[in-house]
């Protein structure tokens, strides 16, 4: 089974040289720490940064330089900053090659819910609706099940949607999966996790074809 770091490391394997990447709050943010040495990617933060770097050294924080999660960050050489309209022009206009974000639920047709629990929690969608409606390449990073042990990979979402038919890939603590033809297709098992365990934790339609390899995580 993967911990959050493991999920981030596995997602980092999906990165390709020359990509601009938007990382959501939480696990996705960790992906930046595991970019393979032999490729160059730039991170976009929807509040207006391209070429975002790591957290600043203690004492060097700048209140005017935060990421979309409101964390203090730095700029890499070659970075640029811009307003929110320009930032979402990049996103909506499909200039960002990959979006990684968390989810409460994902449906087998690619629907995603991650912004609202009616009557209970409404934090808002932030930039997530723009990101999922626009990106061609969307990876969801999340636990396979919720705190009650219920599957988050469902036949259809029960919570208000963030976007429809948009998620292409999911990396969880148990597995790597692809969404196509209205089903979750199992690509890899997390280290030490069996296909049976994944089946048991997946409420939506799961397709298991051939031998499912175990992930290789450094």
């Amino acid at each position, binding site marked *: 089974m993967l911990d959050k770091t493991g999920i981030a490391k596995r997602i980092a394997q999906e990165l390709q040289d020359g990509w601009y990447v938007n990382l959501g709050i939480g696990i996705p943010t960790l992906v930046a720490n595991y970019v393979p040495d032999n490729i160059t990617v730039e991170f976009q933060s929807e509040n207006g940064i391209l070429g975002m770097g790591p957290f600043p050294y203690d004492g060097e924080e700048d*209140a005017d330089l935060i990421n979309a999660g409101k964390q203090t960050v730095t700029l890499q050489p070659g970075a640029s900053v811009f307003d929110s309209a320009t930032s979402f022009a990049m996103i909506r206009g499909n200039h960002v090659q990959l979006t990684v974000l968390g989810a409460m639920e994902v449906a087998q047709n690619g629907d995603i819910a991650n912004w609202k629990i009616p009557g209970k929690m409404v934090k808002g969608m932030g930039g997530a609706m723009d990101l999922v409606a626009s990106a061609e390449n969307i990876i969801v990073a999340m636990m396979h099940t919720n705190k009650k042990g219920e599957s988050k990979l469902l036949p259809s979402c029960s919570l208000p949607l963030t976007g429809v038919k948009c998620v292409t890939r999911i990396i969880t603590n148990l597995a790597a999966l692809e969404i196509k033809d209205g089903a979750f297709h199992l690509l890899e098992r997390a280290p030490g996790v069996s296909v049976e365990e994944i089946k048991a934790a997946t409420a939506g339609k799961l397709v298991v074809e051939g031998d499912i390899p175990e992930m290789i995580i450094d």
Partner: protein
Amino acid sequence: MAINKVVANATEATEGIKDGMTLMLGGFGLCGIPENCISEMVKMNVKGLTCISNNAGVDDFGLGLLLQKKQIKKMISSYVGENDEFERQMLSGELEVDLIPQGSLAERCRAGGAGIPAFFTPAGYGTEVAEGKEVRDFNGKPHILESALTADFAIVKAWKGDTAGNLVFKAAARNFNPMMAMAGKITIAEVEELVPEGDLDPNFIHTPGIFVQRIFQGVDYEKRIEQRTVRQKG
């Protein structure tokens, strides 16, 4: 000489803001928010406001200060977490909340300032956000029609500004400020440093003075950090 937009302070700058008005306020989280004008509006005790702002501050800072005093009737935002009083007022129905995808919010403000009354965007299609909105396919993909936003007053915060109203923002404190500056019937800019006309390079101005009606140099900026995240040296 350029047109002079200077007012003395936040009190002069906020003159004319009245109960029931619609305001735009720049900032992302607590980054790039007009601290001086917010404090002034707390003092003025202006009520029944509709506030268009990406976030709603935290309990004891930013727009949270207006929320504490129940001066806000309605929030139009994209993300309102990190604020318990907000959540309480919203869930109890005291506060109206219109949640908008962040990119649509930015573009709707820009559209309001740019004389574009409506535009199509894919964001929010198939979700609650699309309810009651026109849907149309472009390039085989469904989009929804979103309308422009404007405000009686737009209140923005810049790093530097000149007497002609030209503004320069710093780093990620730019965020929504430039679009909101465009969309206010009256736009107020508070700046950390007010300089004479001619001091800012015309080639590197983020918001041209035409969008700003009043400008003043703010005082006592706290610039609070919401999530102080650091790494250790070595």
